[in-house]
């Protein structure tokens, strides 16, 4: 027998440790958000009303559904159903793309109205609104970057599943990628109410 030694628990613990650093990265920015919100509540109120709740809700729906297909893909692999696993994985990737396209149009509309970091239009707004939009662009931007990275990783995983490098008896890579994708979903679960809902 020529078996490689693998430590699946260790691999998963490593992934969780990485996710913790991500939690702290976004946590720090959300802390900044809450302090500025407390200091400039009226400006935040006015600025948040300008964001499109429907786009935000649609993107929430898309990301939650992509989390579902991601989880289903792992279950399918665990049950040895390669075809179903690939289908769910491709669906997850497509939903990730849809999220990004939505975001592209959302940002596009804002840019069109002259609202982008350091724009002359934005600099005329009250200080609190400026802070709100800076945080909005940084946080949704960082989150979007995570979605892009997630889509890339999942595409790589789809290749590995098709090549049977990930299968019923060795799926840790798919599982860890899933953990990353779900964390991105959790971050959005907080960003959506904080930027689009609470006014």
């Amino acid at each position, binding site marked *: 027998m020529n078996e490689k030694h693998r430590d699946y628990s260790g691999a998963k613990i490593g992934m969780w440790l990485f996710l913790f650093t991500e939690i702290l990265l976004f946590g720090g920015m959300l802390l900044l958000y809450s302090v500025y919100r407390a200091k400039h509540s009226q400006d935040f109120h006015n600025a948040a009303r300008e964001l499109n709740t429907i786009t935000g809700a649609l993107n929430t729906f898309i990301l*939650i559904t992509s989390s579902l297909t991601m989880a289903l893909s792992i279950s399918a692999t665990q049950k040895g159903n390669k075809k179903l696993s690939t289908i769910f994985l491709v669906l997850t990737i497509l939903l990730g793309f849809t999220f990004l396209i939505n975001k592209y149009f959302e940002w596009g509309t804002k840019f069109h109205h002259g609202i982008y970091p350091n724009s002359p239009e934005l600099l005329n707004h009250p200080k609190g609104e400026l802070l709100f939009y800076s945080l909005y662009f940084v946080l949704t931007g960082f989150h979007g970057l995570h979605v892009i990275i997630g889509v890339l990783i999942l595409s790589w995983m789809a290749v590995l599943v098709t090549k049977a490098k990930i299968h019923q008896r060795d799926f840790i890579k798919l*599982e860890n990628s899933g953990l990353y994708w779900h964390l991105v979903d*959790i971050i959005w679960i907080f960003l959506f109410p904080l930027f689009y*809902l*609470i006014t």
Partner: protein
Amino acid sequence: MDQNEAQYHIVSYGTYVLVWIGLLILTGITIVISGLNLGGLSILAVLFIALVKTGLVLSFFMHLKYEETIFQIMLLFPVVILTIFIGFTFFDVSFR
């Protein structure tokens, strides 16, 4: 070594779909609550629902419910650290 040994709990498709429906319902409730203009209370309610949704994603989608206890204990660290950060910052900010 085989990854699919007894330590692995395969979550059924049905459970995942139920969790997904729960998440969608909670999202709907959040949107409705935030539209009610309850002021400070709506912020608390909305954040509480976000925490419940996070709990669902963590326990089921991220399998935390089925993992060894060490994973659940580990998660306490970032949570405690964040709570300390946020708590102490607001001690500072609110009493200036």
